[in-house]
């Protein structure tokens, strides 16, 4: 599986950072909405831009922009998927958002599998930010030939 294009997150300013999580997936599953994949790096068929907005000391997750392929040519936005709304509070989202930071330590040709120097991890409860911390990653040790099952090894 090809590495997938990341969602975007705006947090603490106007700069967008990559987001290796799909907070919209539960909403789409529940409502039965699906999009068309425009290429192999975007199997889900959309890219959402999310923003954490603080109101009265509480930080909430909002979907502020959407570029979703209804068909290969037709792209729809937030107000098409959520009629009457220009941005949407992701109240259904309970879980962790992962934002990769720093240099890419290892590229993995699969989903959000690539490893970066740091991961900014943010925990949400019903769309409200409840905890955040950073995780330092290291280059994973290279697999040697002996660590690979014999039937998967290169021909001798």
């Amino acid at each position, binding site marked *: 599986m090809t590495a997938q294009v990341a969602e975007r997150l705006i947090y603490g300013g106007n700069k967008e950072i990559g987001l290796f999580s799909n907070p919209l997936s539960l909403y789409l599953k529940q*409502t039965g909405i699906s999009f068309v994949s425009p290429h192999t790096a975007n199997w889900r068929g959309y890219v959402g831009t999310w923003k954490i907005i603080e109101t009265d000391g509480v930080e909430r997750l909002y979907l502020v922009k959407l570029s979703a392929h209804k068909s290969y040519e037709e792209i729809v936005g937030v107000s098409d998927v959520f009629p009457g709304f220009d941005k949407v509070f992701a109240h259904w989202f309970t879980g*962790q958002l992962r934002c990769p930071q720093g240099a890419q330590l290892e590229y993995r040709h699969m989903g959000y599998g690539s490893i970066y120097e740091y991961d900014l991890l943010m925990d949400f409860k019903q769309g409200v930010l409840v905890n955040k911390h950073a995780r330092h990653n290291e280059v994973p040790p290279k697999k040697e030939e002996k660590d690979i099952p014999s039937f998967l090894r290169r021909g001798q």
Partner: protein
Amino acid sequence: MIDALLAWRPQTWVDYLLLYIVPGFGMAMYLLAKTIRERPSEFARGLLNVLGKKLTLVDRIKDGAVYCFALACVLLGWPGFVIWYFMNKKAEVARQEFQERPEFDCAPEYLVAVVNPVDAEITSYVIDPLGKVPALPFGHLNKAWGNFLANMLDEQDELWSFYIPMGSKVGKYQRMCRAEIRGYAHVRDGKILAEFITESD
């Protein structure tokens, strides 16, 4: 002749062996007929010839030896093939049942309590100071909630709340959930028929 055949009784070990291989012979004939029916068409054979994959005499001798060996296996080991056939059939049915099983996160062990739909709605309103959620039960998931309730028509149907702790194994393929999951399940006679997830990652 039929009378003589009916009057025949096995006496020597050769007679018993012949009697034993009769079903195997039938099975071998059936498999042979099937193989002949599924052999490559003239067009496919022509294509193989063009590609330089024409069968040589050695290939034909090898094929003949393989067929003879297979025939001997079927004649002598036909009870094993019969057992294998039924076991394979049973496994196929089990595979089919698994594929048809709905992909729910909720399982009976995660059900919490029976809930009244009205009570569920009262506690479901979402507060957002920016007003980016409709003032409806379950906010943006209201339409999905409506569809979920619309299928609860039977008198025996029950609405249960469920809670799946983080790290539990969920779904048909027993994947580990990375966050807690909450929602409601449509239950009839103890069986989960549908689920409505209100919180997940």
